[in-house]
């Protein structure tokens, strides 16, 4: 393969990907009461990863992340389903969720919802599938 000359892209990607990841996490946590949530957050995160894939090659990013994204997707869906099963174990209907208001030391009165765990599962599933799709199309440059 020809050595590529994309200094600008790589330099920008280094900074931009961190911003994108932060924004994705922000999107993720603003769900429930504001626009955002697991799906959008996960997609934004996957977009950041895609930027890294584009600017560096897939192999180096993949080796550094040390994650099998197919497994990540499966784990995500598993987490989401298991939150439903947890409600079943407690004798409620499948997928019943609960909300509690707790005073945390740093954040003050915070609303904690069990659906956040569900959303974490959704986010992981979206990241896993999106990245798997991109890699299976773009992975075979000979």
């Amino acid at each position, binding site marked *: 393969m020809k050595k590529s000359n994309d200094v600008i892209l790589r330099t920008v990607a280094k900074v931009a990907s961190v911003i994108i990841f932060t924004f994705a996490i922000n999107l993720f946590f603003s769900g429930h009461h504001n626009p955002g949530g697991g799906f959008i957050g996960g997609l934004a995160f996957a977009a950041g990863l895609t930027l890294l894939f584009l600017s560096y090659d897939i192999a180096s990013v993949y080796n550094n992340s040390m994650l099998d994204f197919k*497994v990540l997707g*499966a784990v995500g869906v598993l987490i989401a389903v298991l939150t439903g099963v947890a409600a079943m174990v407690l004798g*409620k*209907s499948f997928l019943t*969720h609960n909300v509690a208001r707790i005073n945390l030391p740093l954040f003050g009165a915070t609303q904690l919802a069990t659906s956040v765990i569900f959303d974490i599962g959704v986010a992981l599933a979206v990241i896993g599938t999106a990245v798997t799709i991109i890699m299976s199309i773009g992975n075979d440059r000979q």
Partner: protein
Amino acid sequence: MNNLVVLPIIIPLITGLVLAIFNRQIRLHRLLSLLATLSISVVAILLMNQVAIDGPQILQLGNWEAPFGISLVADMLSAILVLTTGIVVSCCLLYAFASIGRERELKYFYPLVLFLLTGVNGSFLTGDIFNLFVCFEVMLVASYVLISLGGTKLQLRESFKYILVNLISSFLFLVSIAYLYGMLGSLNMAHLSARVAEAGQVGLLIPVSILFLIVFSIKAGLLLFYWLPGSYSAPPAVIGAIFAALLTKVGAYAIIRIFSLIFYHDPQITHSLIGILAGISMLLGAIGAVAYWDIKRILTYNVIISIGLILAGFASFNQIGLTGSVYYIVHDMLVKALIFLAGGTVIYVTGTSKIREISGLIQLHPQLGWMFFIGTLSLAGIPPLSGFVGKVLITGGTFQADYFWLGGIGLLTSLMALYSLMKIFMNCFWGNTELTPEMEKGSTRGLLFPIGILAALTFLLGLGAEGIYQYVELAAKGLLDPGIYIGAVLGSNPIP
């Protein structure tokens, strides 16, 4: 609230995900997937008994009350179908252990079958029309991957057509859901039924119901089956068997559910149209089955005949016809799996699917031959096998509804189906034995056992028809009286 209802959906889902995470341990894959399908059967038996005693079992997901949340409903029809699905897939998995090959096993074969099962069970159990669409898609996406798994040239070509046809019909499904929502403002099937009953099935609702019929006809292979023979004969035998036993039946189930629960007010238009479609597809399927000299083609055209017969019973829309339809779906799921697996074994042993090139297999594989023969007789409806009861009831139902031509076509095509399968049997199993054991392409070790179970089950379903009849009759009663379903789902809630 009954959490048992969700188990047939989440057991295969969770197992499939766990298997996808541990994607290298093939032995674990085999063990867990078989365990999952068997436990689904057990859950389904429990559900059947509860439904027989207490009426339809309901689960409101996340405790959201009926018209607003998603309800899962297990009435008798759903419970019976889930049970049959569990048994059939267990047998197909046993067959797959010996035949599917390590390469496909490593490419997530077992998780995909389990995801397919998630979608199939979800479609049977859901009480929400949009959720029906989602479950259909889960099932279809898994089937897209299964049909192209392995990636031979033939498979790639056929799977592309298969995906395209199903994609378009899914879009049409969404369009009809959008129209329905725009008109009635609800997605819960029981609620929809109540609203249609209130407003009357008039005006634009009739075209919308026809649109639903078109969508499910494509999926079930009712008249619009042009995609079916090619795509069902492309993948390996066991995948073909799962598809033939389950996928088209899900489409047929959707037609039965929608047109017995929501659009049942105007049978002059909708149900006689279903009858006409069923008659034509039986005839065309029979012509196709008679014309071809290729095992896979003959078997796939037989799928179309039986879909026609099931919906002929439904079109008559009386107690006898519906009982026959439900009974015949159960019978057909078992027998289609049986003859697809047996036919697949013939192809596996001889390495060809052209019946003119095969002869005298009975010398080498007597058990296989006789089990194929049992499947043939059962499909044709010879007593005491299971096809007989279903066909008698369906024919009786169509006669009672004055659809004499439909019953006549049913009987005629049964004869043609018998001819087409006897053609396979006589050409492949009789005659001079040209094959020697050394020339065989594969061994039947481990393949005959699951086929034997299915053959025994079709005997049992025919001989023990008395015992099963009460459950099937209950399912047909539930279809004729949607009030039972609506009352169970909406409960004492006022209908907003």
